[in-house]
């Protein structure tokens, strides 16, 4: 019981910081997946008087994945009644060329503006349709969501750091006496602080394993799967190797930092 109490306070503090980190990672991944999804459905339409060199345009603009010439046949079909084939051919020649630009990623409003300006520099381009109203709204919504989650994660991080610094004082009180006594019998610093570092390592490991279990459960949850399916995205909620590595690394870094601060601030009793 006493041993559990020794570990619990730091483990809880570390768990909350790992929880906020992983939540941020999941949200970031979801937003990126959603943006990818949107970019597949989002495209710009360019109207040009002349045929555009597709390769040249793709090479000029990093954001463009592909450029597709839209056939005017569908429009002409509607006007087909009572027009001779010769006139239809003439109409086809006189119509401007319509291109669909497929993008590599869902662009920001600035990227859309820059791309439009750049395309309009070509004198043969008459118009670039960006569907900006619907694009801007979606993008701003995503941005707002990400900002809210970032602020939340940051706040949890700050609260946790405050918790850890409080823990630092408790640890200082608990470990200073033992370290002083060991020092009086000639123990080098590494030996007198070994217990502290071992405790820090064990706590980091416990917190990471707890977080691993929680997020493995979340990742395998049917409810979470359904929610992601509902918004049409596939996301790795928890990567058992990479995410666990990041969590363990952060937990070790924080707990070792805590132990190091105690060792540095330790003064021999006189």
């Amino acid at each position, binding site marked *: 019981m006493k041993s559990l109490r020794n570990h619990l306070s730091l483990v809880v503090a570390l768990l909350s910081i790992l929880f906020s980190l992983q939540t941020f990672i999941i949200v970031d991944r979801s937003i990126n997946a959603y943006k990818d999804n949107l970019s597949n459905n989002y495209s710009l339409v360019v109207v040009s008087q002349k045929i555009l060199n597709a390769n040249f345009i793709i090479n000029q603009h990093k954001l463009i994945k592909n450029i597709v010439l839209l056939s005017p046949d569908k429009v002409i079909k509607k006007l087909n009644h009572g027009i001779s084939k010769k006139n239809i051919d003439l109409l086809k020649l006189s119509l401007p060329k319509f291109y669909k630009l497929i993008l590599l990623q869902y662009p920001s409003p600035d990227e859309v503006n820059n791309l439009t300006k750049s395309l309009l520099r070509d004198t043969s381009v008459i118009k670039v349709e960006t569907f900006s109203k619907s694009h801007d709204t979606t993008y701003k919504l995503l941005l707002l969501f990400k900002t809210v989650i970032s602020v939340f994660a940051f706040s949890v991080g700050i609260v946790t750091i405050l918790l850890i610094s409080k823990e630092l004082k408790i640890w200082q009180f608990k470990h200073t*006496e*033992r370290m*002083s*006594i*060991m*020092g*009086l*019998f*000639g*123990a*080098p*610093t590494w*030996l007198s602080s070994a217990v502290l570092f071992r405790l820090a390592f064990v706590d980091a490991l416990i917190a990471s394993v707890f977080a691993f279990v929680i997020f493995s459960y979340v990742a395998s949850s049917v409810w979470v799967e359904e929610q992601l399916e509902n918004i049409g995205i596939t996301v790795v909620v928890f990567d058992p190797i990479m995410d666990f590595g990041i969590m363990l690394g952060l937990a070790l870094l924080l707990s070792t930092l805590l132990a190091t601060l105690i060792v540095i601030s330790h003064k*021999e*009793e*006189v």
Partner: protein
Amino acid sequence: MDKVIVADNLSLSYSKDETIINKVSFSIDSGSFVFITGASGSGKSTLLKSLYGALKPQEGSLVVAGVELKGVTKSKLNLLRKHTGIVFQDYKLVKEWTIEKNIMLPLIISGYDKTVQQNQVDTLLKHVRLKHQAGKYPQELSGGEQQRVAMARALSHNPVLILADEPTGNLDDYSSQLIWNLLEGANTDLKSTVIVVTHHIPESMGVDYKHFHIEYGSIHEVA
């Protein structure tokens, strides 16, 4: 005879304004038993602290077991302390360790193997009559028992120098006698130099001893 402690014009203080020990010179022979007495606040404990390097000389020189403590490095000080056994008035036992592990501490620090550690602890627990308390924690013992544990810890690594700060203050007769017997034994059997700071020298000492008295910041030998 070799000198284990040589103080020359030694001054000690906790702050620049107040000097506790003022330019004293004395020496202590290796293997001797020494009492340091003096009134409360005279500087007995301060002098003892300086002998294990917890307080550095303000002026003069202090050499303990060949180590000059003025400006001593941490590694040299650790080496000196590994060969010193200290008994504190407030015991200074590690609360979260068992009695057994507390006694083992100097052996762990010196890197003895586990079998040696265990054998030595078993022997010492018998000497201090605490074999049955081995697995207990310090706070579960009485003051006298805790001081006996501290005594066993100070002797566990057969130190060349034993420093004891009022080791029998507030102890019952049984524990006091046990501690004096152990200190005498360490002096005669292990040939350790024993320096005891105390208010009262016990009437029946089984060994020859020297007596230093501290008064008004200076030290003199009592014949």
